[in-house]
């Protein structure tokens, strides 16, 4: 059963790092964080796409 405990420990530590460290501190959703509504997000995306000269 030692193997089982090791694997469960790896899974739990990994999930903690992924969801409570990486997601919370390093991976905010760029458009959701910077704009409040979908309309604003659309406007920003169109603005970025149409800036090419």
């Amino acid at each position, binding site marked *: 059963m030692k193997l089982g405990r090791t*694997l469960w420990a790896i899974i739990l530590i990994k999930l903690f790092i992924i969801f409570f460290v990486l997601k919370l501190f390093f991976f905010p959703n760029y458009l959701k964080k910077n704009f409040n509504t979908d309309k604003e997000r*659309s406007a920003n995306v169109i603005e*970025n796409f149409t800036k090419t000269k």
Partner: protein
Amino acid sequence: MNEIVDLSMLDWSRGQFALTAFYHWLFVPLTLGITFILAIMETIYYKTGDPEWKKITRFWMKVFGINFAIGVATGIILEFQFGTNWSYYSWFVGDIFGAPLAIEGIMAFFMESTFIAVMFFGWDKVSKRFHLVSTWLTAIGANLSALWILVANAWMQNPVGMQFNPDTARNEMVNFWDVFLSPMAINKFLHTISSGFVLAGVFIIGVSAWFLLKQREVPFAKKSILVAAIFGFISSLFLVTTGDGSARLVAQNQPMKLAAMEGLYQGKNGAGLVAFGIFSPTGTDPANDKLNDFLFKIEIPNALSYMIHLDANAFVPGVKDLLNGNEKERMLSAADKISRGKMAIETLRNYKNALTEGRKEEALQMKDKFMSKDFQNNYFKYFGYGFIKNSNELIPGIQLVFYSFHMMVILGSWFLIFFFLSIYFIVNNEITKRRLFLKIAILTIPLVYLAQMAGWTVAEMGRQPWVVQDLLPTVAAVSNINAGAVMVTFWLFALIFTLLLVAEIKIMTKQIKIGPNEGGH
């Protein structure tokens, strides 16, 4: 857009995605294939009642469990990156990407997880029949998980079944079945899972070869090799067939990628297939310094034309035809496509300006124009080209794609021979005497991982500069965020994934050394 994107940010984001995807894919293919081999082994146990087959199944199940536990959830990090580093891409692909991923999460993931629990912990607790059904459903669930993400990836290679909404800047799915059943999606799914089947076959034969070299667990190893070799051989044939189908689809939808895969600069009728080639490190085509000359190549005459069109004299376009156009073959030049793409972007800009400035009637007319069939087929189709400044940007890294493709094909051919020899030696009861072959079998394990990575390099690097073929270049897909943050997470991922890989190798080699007679779940 191009002016304001920090190229180092783009490079770091691409590097981070590639790093994460490669590490994630180190864990996935073994799961795809070994679950089916487990199901076959357990079926033999169910049919024969022979406890040796139960022992064999439980050992490989333990190996699968280690791989699953360490690899599970590593793909979620890719989804985080979509929202942070690739927000414009995420927005642009809209529900085309969201729907398959949601289905994956709801259906396949839960199906796989539920039956995995029964498979691991249900021995002697549920009936033999129910346990066997659970093992089969785990295999099906694992492969269904891969289906949805591959459907999404196929859409990036060949966007179909959608309509771009100029009000939201998102693509909306208009026909789920066009997306789900596109030939690109079906072929990509079958080619990818069969590559996982081949990997699992090689892996089991390689590990069993180690037992035979150590003269341990001989009946166990021989039986394992028999099942893995037959499964692997059939999968290899399937891999070759679907690979051939892939090349034909690439020729139709991504001709520049095909030209890079073959190092074909000037298109021609009766194009030859380069079986092997080495590029000159210095010499280039006088007309384009991105096109390195071949130092040496072995070419099979007319084979490329035949492979793509089933006609030995058919025309296959090269890089130059795709850049300069070819009137005879009715091919637009890159300059024409760029001009049309700019027109599509300009129309979108004018529509947005008319809307925001309250010119409602003008806006309505522009929207009608934008949504018309003619505009969609002749201008929006080239939307992504509007971001391209220089037509040479349309050429992917030819040497990387060429070498990766040829490495994949050469290794794929070796795997077919390898499985054939494995079957031959095991059926003729010669396998224990073939010590050189057993050593080669162990060395073939890393080669099959290398072939997997080469395949993904062809698929993803060969698509460059596009993130969505012809519609969105990578440079327009990336968020305006700080490169420093991406650098930090790049190295963080490199560390975490390396630790996971070391843990996987360490735990797995330890359990393999223990063998099938000791230890449990």
